[in-house]
């Protein structure tokens, strides 16, 4: 096993390069992905290496990008499309939810949809409106799609190759604020990598289960480290697959700890935290020592950059959520601090 230090962006680039190299049916398409290498440089150098027919700069029309990708599957291609920013995906919403997601069922399984839709998502990058959103719940709610969100460069590489190999459409969310953070990556470890459907326990602990995905995995691990200094043992589950969700890993962890905190940047109402809380409550009711706690973005449109630090959960808000899950605020009359939902109170 040999590793290379790679940024998140370079790990994705390496996976795209490998896929283009290995399978002539793979092509990538999107806005500014050619000469420019994408606005985040994720596709840097790929057009020069693989040509403009395989790394395709498209007109500025997201529905057009996804809709033509659907047509390319009829021709036998395995398209990987890049949506430039999370907030730009909505013009393609119909093609994704009414076409990409449904064509396999519409054709009684005779036509497969090996399409990967890459979407940089999440905030804290100081950008204008529409550049910092977390729209994953829309796609998780849509039957026919698989949705994943890697939380580190190794996963970014391996899960992208797994997504490209999938016969099903995969929406692949990239935590854009982590693009330029580096880690050691083994580019040849795919065979032993966990399936992209699986959640992974990143840190073992005994007192509370903390579930996060994408950009907040790192934040969650930092929060767990701080909690450990205070003597609280936090188990961090990196969800990775948002659809299907790995119930087994989630419930095994909560059965062990008896407490659940879910953190995500997306708004709270009908966000993934709601689903995870419901699943854990349904399946681990008798193990729970406290109501599940959600630490999330508020139910507001993504705020202007100067306010985003209040909206996006950080280490402190996650630690606060952990305190709630541990019942440290129960029965002492404190108002719930911002960002930590305690509906239901202590069991």
């Amino acid at each position: 096993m040999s590793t290379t230090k790679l940024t998140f962006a370079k790990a994705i680039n390496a996976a795209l390069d490998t896929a283009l190299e290995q399978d002539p049916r793979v092509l990538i398409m999107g806005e500014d992905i050619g000469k420019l290498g994408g606005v985040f440089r994720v596709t840097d150098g790929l057009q020069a290496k693989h040509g403009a027919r395989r790394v395709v700069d498209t007109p500025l029309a997201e529905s057009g990008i996804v809709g033509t990708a659907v047509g390319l599957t009829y021709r036998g291609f395995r398209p990987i499309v890049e949506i430039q920013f999370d907030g730009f995906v909505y013009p393609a919403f119909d093609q994704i939810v009414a076409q990409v997601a449904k064509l396999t069922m519409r054709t009684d399984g005779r036509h497969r949809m090996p399409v990967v839709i890459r979407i940089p998502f999440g905030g804290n990058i100081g950008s204008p409106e529409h550049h910092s959103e977390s729209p994953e719940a829309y796609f998780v709610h849509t039957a026919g799609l698989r949705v994943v969100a890697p939380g580190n460069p190794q996963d970014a590489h391996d899960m992208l190759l797994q997504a490209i190999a999938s016969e099903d459409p995969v929406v692949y969310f990239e935590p854009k604020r982590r693009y330029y953070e580096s880690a050691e990556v083994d580019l040849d470890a795919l065979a032993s990598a966990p399936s992209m459907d699986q959640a992974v326990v990143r840190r073992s602990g005994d007192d509370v289960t903390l579930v996060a995905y994408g950009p907040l995995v790192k934040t969650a691990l930092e929060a767990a480290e701080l909690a450990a200094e205070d003597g609280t043992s936090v188990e961090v589950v990196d969800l990775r697959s948002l659809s299907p969700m790995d119930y087994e890993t989630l419930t095994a962890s909560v059965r062990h700890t008896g407490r659940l905190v879910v953190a995500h940047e997306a708004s709270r109402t009908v966000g993934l935290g709601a689903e995870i809380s419901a699943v854990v409550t349904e399946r681990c009711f008798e193990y729970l020592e406290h109501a599940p706690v959600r630490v999330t973005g508020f139910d507001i449109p993504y705020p202007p950059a100067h306010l985003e630090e209040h909206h996006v959960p950080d280490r402190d808000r996650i630690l606060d959520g952990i305190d709630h899950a541990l019942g440290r605020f129960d029965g002492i009359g404190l108002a719930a601090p911002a960002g930590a939902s305690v509906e239901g109170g202590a069991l």
Partner: protein
Amino acid sequence: MALAPSERNANSPYPEDSAQNCPRTLSLLSPEGVRVVTGEDAARVADIDDTALAALYSKMVVQRRIDAEGTALQRQGQLALWAPSKGQEAAQIGAAEAFRESDFIFPTYRDHGVIHSRGVAASEVMRQWRGASHGGWDPHEKNLAPVQIIIGAQTLHAVGYAMGAAFDGNGGAAVAFLGDGATSQGDVNEAMIFAASFKAPVLFFLENNQFAISEPVTLQSRTPLVDRPRGFGIRAVRVDGNDVLAVLSATRDALARIDAGEGPQFIEAVTYRRGAHTTADDPSRYRDTELESYWEKLDPIDRVEACLRSRGVDVEAVLATAGAEADEVAAELRAAVVSMTEDDPELLFAHVYSEPHPRIEEQRAEYLAYLAETGGDAA
């Protein structure tokens, strides 16, 4: 609003066309059955002799019969819905006659004649209308996508297919069917942009049947629709969509240009939906009898019959043959529909994904267990 029939340009069935506002409309067979035999457009269909014309006539009669049977089956409670195509036979049969097996077709829900021409079995065609499936046939076996219900979405799929053909260099073309309502959709405009930019081998075949459910084409566009593609850099022609020879000629020409590397082509076939939008629609609420009778005189089948008759063809024999074939197809349709029993609850879960999916498997097991417990009566 549309001009009154009496004020319209006699050479154009397009409601907004006055003498001052009328793009050229290709016509090779007049409503009275007079055939144009000179000029390059006519030369493209010179091989259509009386026998071949009689064959086209039969295909149109069969389509009309399929359509009538579909409506009847729906009225009898055998189909969930039907989208009538009466009046659009020349547009569909004329276009389909020009297609090659290798052309990949992306139809709408009203293109019964096109679908029949691809050899799709009645048992497969009717599954969707019966409510047994959202599709019906194998798209790869027939080079025919499932019908599209989201207006205009299929045009992007056709363009994507054609982009693939341009990228892989292995030949082939795509055909996107669309209606006048679809031209207002963003997807259709995006499709034309992508098609032009990538010089994709794709034919946009617009059946302008004058109405999008109740909305007249004049609400979709104040200019003739044939004028739009030019703004995208796409060659467009307008044909009398009730003239099977004009449609065939224009479609052959378009496909030849695509094969020659000229890139995307666009045909506006001006026709008229003589029936309702679907069996759930009531056109008497939005169309007057003057308009209906105006278009009745322009019927695509009657004029072929008149032409054949004027040329001394034994039309009664042609009618008898066509009628017998139509009867056979209609009987097949009916038999296929009434024998459909695809209500196995397993089918709910079977094709949501191509690869195993734990949540689907779990819900499938849960529901089947529930059915077993309740003796299956709950469904």
